[in-house]
């Protein structure tokens, strides 16, 4: 007994390897990945810039209502007051073209769009909508798909067959066309859309969010269901069953923790995909609706000005590329840190 006690004591005293949970290990791994951290930094910077949109509009650009048309406005270039919408060339002075980039941070830095709004301010406001839709729809999509995948994988049998088949059918639709269909239906209905107590107006940002979250459900469902199936028959689940654990406990405290890492690996890649999808839908005029703006709607507006004022569409596009690139790099880093063997392909 004494010997055993002594042994126990020495084990206790041994400078033990500090116990770290797998999350801490993964985080340490991610922190060492300089490229991924740079990407995270860039993404955070873009988020902060977008959040600062009202600050920029009021204190730097001095624009009272950045989202409303400003056809008769003036601004200052090289100390001279000039109209935002400039008269067209030629003798008749037909047609107006918005002012081009002044490269002066306080006065129409990137010029104006077709209705005289400051493009730089619009991009910051557009970033809010794009990021909000991207992040929330990816989150809804991942949460929804995880719940369905847990139920399908855990109960198996008929439940699994039905849920998987439903997902297969959503998968079979062309992504953009399905989104276009749903959007057209929802947007023609100007009174908004009522689901139980939830009421969403047609021009709300929640309409594209819900559509995008819905169409990507199967893309997240498939890998997570596979993950659930691979743990559902493991010994620790059997042990929990032997202890008399309820289904609820089995699903949420035995199986869920083992699939969360896959969800987290998918999350940045999903946000990248949803941001691109939102931009595409807005470009096709079925995404974000006026008076809201997003990067996609600015690019869409810039289409008409492409050859005269290219920065109207170039600048928001560059923002999208930077954001999505940062998220993809970050996603690669998160995958390497958490689950290097994961085969993840969102699109």
């Amino acid at each position, binding site marked *: 007994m004494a010997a055993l006690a002594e042994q126990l004591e020495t084990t206790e005293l041994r400078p033990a390897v500090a116990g770290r949970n797998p999350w801490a290990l993964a985080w340490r791994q991610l922190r060492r990945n300089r490229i991924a951290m740079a990407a995270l930094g860039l993404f955070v910077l873009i988020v902060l810039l977008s959040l600062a949109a009202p600050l920029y509009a009021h204190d730097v650009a001095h624009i009272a209502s950045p989202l409303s048309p400003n056809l008769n406005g003036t601004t200052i270039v090289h100390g001279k007051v000039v109209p935002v919408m400039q008269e067209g060339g030629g003798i008749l002075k037909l047609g107006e073209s918005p002012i081009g980039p002044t490269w002066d941070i306080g006065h129409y830095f990137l010029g104006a769009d077709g209705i005289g709004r400051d493009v730089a301010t619009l991009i910051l406001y557009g970033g809010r909508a794009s990021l909000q839709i991207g992040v929330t729809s990816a989150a809804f999509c991942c949460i929804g798909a995880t719940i369905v995948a847990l139920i399908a994988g855990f109960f198996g049998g008929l439940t699994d067959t039905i849920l998987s088949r439903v997902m297969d059918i959503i998968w*079979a639709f*062309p992504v*953009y066309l399905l989104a276009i269909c749903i959007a*057209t*239906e929802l947007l023609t209905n100007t009174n908004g859309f009522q689901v139980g107590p939830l009421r969403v107006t047609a021009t709300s940002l929640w309409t594209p969010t819900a559509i995008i979250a819905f169409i990507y459900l199967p893309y997240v469902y498939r890998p997570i269901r596979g993950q659930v199936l691979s743990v559902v028959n493991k010994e620790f689940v059997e042990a929990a069953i032997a202890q008399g654990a309820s289904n609820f406990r089995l699903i949420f405290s035995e199986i869920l923790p083992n699939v969360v890492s896959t969800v987290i690996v998918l999350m940045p890649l999903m946000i990248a995909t949803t941001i*691109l999808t939102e931009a595409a839908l807005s*470009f*096709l005029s079925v995404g974000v609706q006026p008076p809201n703006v997003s990067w996609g709607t600015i690019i869409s507006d810039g289409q008409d000005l492409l*050859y005269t004022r290219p920065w109207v569409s170039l600048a928001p596009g560059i923002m999208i590329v930077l954001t999505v690139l940062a998220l993809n790099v970050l996603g690669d880093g998160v995958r390497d840190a958490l689950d290097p063997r994961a085969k993840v*392909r969102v699109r």
Partner: protein
Amino acid sequence: MLTFVIRRTLWTVVVMFVITVVVFFIFFKTPGVDPARAIAGRSPTPQQLAEIRVQFGLNRPLYVQYARMMKSIFIDRNLVSYSDQGELVIPEIFSAAPATLSLVFGASLIWIVTAIGMGAAAAKLRGTIYDPILMILALIGISCPVFWLGQVVNLITQGGLHRSVFSWLPALGYTSFATSPVKWFEGLIFPWITLSILYIGLYARVLRANLLEVQSEDYIRTARAKGLSEQRVLLRHTLRTSMITFVSLFGLDFGALVGGGAILTEVVFGIHGVGFLTYEALINLDLATLMAVVIFGAFFIVLANALVDIGYAWLDPRVRPT
């Protein structure tokens, strides 16, 4: 194998049926949405709405409406465009299909060749600076919104440099191959490149990861032990195995692009294919055209998926479910 093919085919038919039902419900039974109002366009009178209900059979029972709709799409092919009365939808879709097919075929040729080159080069050059450079390029390709990339390409080729370097380029639009093969090629070369960039990035990454995974397999070691040259190991053994994944991915993406995924490229470059038709229908709120396009697009994707599954099972007996 035969059972698998039969089961897969049956399931394909079921999926197609469900798709038609789902699309029908999206268009005619979305809660709180009145299809007559959508058909009528902006601010209709109550009388117009009533006329439309009768004309389109919206006052009939649901299954009759569904059957009428499917009959006019698949059997009579006389579905009439809602916004442009008199225009038949189905022939319009079929006459737009060659443009989309030209676009997707050309782009897929470019992306397959380039992606194999890039992926194989990156895997081969692992450990050198070229591997990360290639992969960053691939990642940038994946991160570009295709419509924006198209605008940038247009800005360069139709705007800034149109008078000098790109003076040979025709204006935006599609010329059919039968009219003039040279014009067809010239009009499509930049849309092809633009559309393929995303897929070059995706496929190069997938291929590189796959090649690296396969490289540690025993049979590759055996091939090396036999004294085969690295070149031969790469071409005949590693690349060949990776092709299975590559081909199945290709089938899915090809199906998705023809089935409506090329809409953004078509809109930016003004190529009057199925995607452009969808876009016009969307702008005019022409639900009949939209519905038909979605149904045909989804059918194409379902068929492509089925072919991929069957092909995959044929190539690799391990995945063949019983």
